[in-house]
């Protein structure tokens, strides 16, 4: 059976000489399959919205879908962050659309960028750094109030602060691992079941029943994976909104 992890192997498509970054050493900026998938996803998002943003009063199909996705994130930001959600909408929407397109692309092409820990961790850090930046810009030094919820008795406060700090620091990690794990798990399971189809099919008539079962599972899992692809992008957007809301409405924390 083919190695189910092989699909996550980074391969270079266009070699670019490494760039020396002071303090970090050499960074290989070659276009790999992961970079290519990211470029393609970003391009598709732009092309899709270039078509979807046609401003027709009676929208076509693409425009309807585009406006539906926009409305989804808009409603999310509005309902979680409130009135100030509009300011963060472009950021949340870019995250959502980018992750969604990378996930969905992974269902059609051979490589899923969101199954790379480097990618999801960078996205997670991007979110949390944005949260910290917004927190300091909005509240100044009062940002640290985030770690000291009001209404906690004095003697338990040190413990609560410790927990809050840890939970805050863990956020980018959970964001990254949730997306990473879902994508990797789904694709590995698909690969293994698809491998079963071939392996059992080669065993003769008796194996065919097993192969048919495995094939049915692959079909069902593919449907499930499409849902997961959308759901994980949605969850990423929701959590981004929740974390942003924490620092935007620090007073009511």
């Amino acid at each position: 059976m083919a190695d189910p992890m092989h699909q996550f192997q980074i391969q270079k498509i266009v070699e670019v000489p490494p760039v020396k970054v002071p303090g970090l050493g050499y960074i290989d900026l070659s276009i790999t399959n992961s970079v290519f998938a990211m470029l393609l996803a970003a391009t598709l998002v732009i092309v899709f919205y270039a078509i979807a943003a046609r401003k027709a009063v009676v929208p076509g199909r693409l425009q309807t879908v585009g406006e539906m996705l926009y409305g989804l994130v808009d409603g999310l930001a509005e309902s979680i962050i409130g009135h100030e959600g509009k300011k963060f909408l472009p950021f949340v929407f870019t995250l959502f659309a980018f992750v969604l397109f990378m996930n969905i692309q992974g269902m059609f092409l051979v490589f899923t960028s969101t199954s790379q820990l480097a990618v999801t961790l960078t996205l997670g850090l991007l979110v949390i750094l944005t949260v910290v930046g917004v927190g300091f810009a909005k509240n100044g030094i009062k940002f640290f109030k985030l770690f000291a919820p009001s209404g906690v008795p004095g003697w338990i406060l040190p413990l609560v602060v410790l927990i809050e700090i840890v939970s805050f620091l863990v956020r980018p990690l959970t964001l990254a691992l949730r997306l990473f794990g879902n994508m990797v798990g789904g694709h590995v399971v698909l690969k293994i079941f698809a491998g079963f189809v071939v392996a059992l099919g080669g065993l003769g008539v008796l194996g065919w029943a097993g192969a048919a079962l495995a094939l049915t599972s692959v079909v069902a899992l593919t449907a499930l994976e499409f849902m997961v692809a959308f759901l994980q992008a949605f969850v990423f957007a929701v959590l981004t909104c929740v974390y942003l809301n924490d620092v935007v409405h620090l007073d009511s924390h």
Partner: protein
Amino acid sequence: MATENHGTVESTEAPGHESGGLPQLQFQHWGGQIVWLLLIFAVLYVVLSKGLLPRVSGAIDERGAKIAGDIADARRLKDEAEVQARAAAAEVAEARAKAQKTAADAKAKASAQAAERQAKEEAVLAEKLAAAEASIQTARDEAMSHVRTVAEETAGAIVEKLTGKAASAAELKAALA
């Protein structure tokens, strides 16, 4: 996912991943992915936030405004139509009342004329009747006066025949009174 992208560069790849472990943890590939991701994300963010998303929200807002405007227009037109319908109904009612009045007037006038003409006719008839009755009365009176004379003559003839002697006119008149 069944097909794999066997890139031509694969053979030049570090053979580290063959020994097992996640390919995602080959840290030599992290730097490039992170830099590219940040670049791509930045470009995507700028294009979406400055170019495309305002157009999408603009289209949505425009549609909302247009729908609201159209509904307001429709409501206004409906109100106008209702006012006009009410005015038209009032006009019809007025016209009907007028027509009824005219009809009633004409009827009254006609019946008055008819009554007048009838009265005139009756007067003429009554006159004729009176004249006829008068002439009948005269004729009867005359006839009655002739009856006395005839009776006198008859009585004189009868007396003369019975007695052989003619009675005087005075005696006959006294006998017949």
